């Protein structure tokens, strides 16, 4: 069965849909967690520390965190590999372009591929910036995420990279969520309006929720 799924374009799309939903659920949790920055350094740092102790005493320190990380890495790789293979196939299937050009698909649909590449690059920067601190602007301190976030959003490039990526994630979700529903066969004529509304709402909510943090730092609400 695994072979049937992976060898088929419809199967690869299923892999994309499922891995996309996994990442989407993570983003919702991530966004909610981020908002704690508006309640002060104490609460935010405490929340960040809690992420390492979730599940104790059943789980050892950071076990839950590492399980989440492994699931996410698998989801990102599955999503990216199937997207790459499907895109190669799509481009091969239409080698000759029409002389009379007409762009009709929505902006969100047209930017799925490059938007995805932008997001992949963003994730690398984001991890190097706020998880490992390798490319962090100020003096990165483990266990002081509040200060680290403020440092990042005190630089112009930190803000630019983040804002571009969050707009990209909104567009990606807008088309991606609705598409995943079609791929998994849950869409229908009667549900179409509801699914599109949920896709728009999710995209808007996540983009706004994530952008609240850099905006908060820029306006001095968070400092």
């Amino acid at each position, binding site marked *: *069965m695994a072979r*049937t*799924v992976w*060898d*088929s*374009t*419809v*199967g*690869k*799309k*299923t892999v994309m849909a499922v891995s996309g939903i996994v990442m989407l659920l993570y983003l919702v949790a991530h966004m909610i967690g981020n908002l704690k920055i508006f309640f002060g350094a104490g609460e935010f740092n405490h929340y960040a520390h809690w992420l390492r102790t979730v599940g104790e005493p059943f789980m050892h320190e950071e076990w839950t965190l590492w399980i989440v990380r492994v699931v996410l890495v698998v989801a990102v790789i599955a999503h990216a590999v199937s997207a790459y293979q*499907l895109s190669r*196939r*799509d*481009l*091969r*299937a*239409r*080698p*000759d*372009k*029409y*002389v*009379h*050009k*007409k762009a*009709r*698909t929505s902006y969100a*649909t047209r930017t*799925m591929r490059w938007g995805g590449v932008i997001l992949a690059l963003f994730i690398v920067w984001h991890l190097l910036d706020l998880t490992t601190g390798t490319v962090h602007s100020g003096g990165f301190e483990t266990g002081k995420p509040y200060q680290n976030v403020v440092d990042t959003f005190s630089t112009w490039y930190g803000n630019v990279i983040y804002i571009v990526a969050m707009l990209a994630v909104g567009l990606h979700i807008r*088309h991606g969520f*609705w*598409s995943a*529903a*079609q*791929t*998994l*066969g*849950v*869409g*229908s*004529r009667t549900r*179409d309006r509801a699914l599109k509304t949920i896709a728009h709402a999710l995209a808007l909510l996540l983009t706004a929720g994530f952008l609240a943090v850099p905006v908060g730092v820029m306006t001095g609400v968070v400092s």
Partner: protein
Amino acid sequence: MKLNLRVWRQKNADADGAMSTYEVDGISPDMSFLEMLDTLNEELILKGEDPVAFDHDCREGICGACSLVINGDAHGPERTTTCQLHMRSFEDGDTIDVEPWRASAFPVVKDLVVDRSAFDRIIQAGGYITAPTGSAPEAHATPVPKPDADLAFEHAECIGCGACVAACPNGAAMLFTSAKVNHLNVLPQGAPERETRVLDMVAQMDEEGFGGCTLAGECATACPKGIPLTSITGMNREWLRATRRAGKR
């Protein structure tokens, strides 16, 4: 009407093609697009030139033989087949671009004619039902609920013209294949091959080199028969169901 035509000319499958410009005069707004091309071809023949090759058959919008991407739209600006498109949809003095369907699974044979036999092979893979031959069976022998019959008929309207592939930015044949799958899978007559049909037809579709679906929705907009985009969702649902069942066996 006087029109400027820019038509894709290509001697054969191996030759390089290019857009050639022609002027046609004396076109009536009541002519169909194909009649306008007939007029052009008559002039070309009189001049001793090679007429423009294009596919056509019934010329009443039911056979699916005509094609043509007109000004970037499969079957032109109206939601119908090229044979049912009339010149009143254009203005006097317009420049009109006429191109063949573009997809690697639909190679150009000559000028505007493409080879659509990939569709035939998708049908051969599962677009049929197993039924005893002979005289027509009693219509009431197999009851079909009205909503199912309507759904089947909506998908049965597909004439296999290939506009969906031509319009798709990925050259995908998902709308065509899904129309055929849904048409038969919803009916009791199609039930015995319900799983193998969708698995085999999707496999053949991939085999032919069509692209995948990115839900751009261009296919359903171009379809002269109004096959809805949700048809693809229905096929995905059938494919997942069949895959789960095949895994259990």
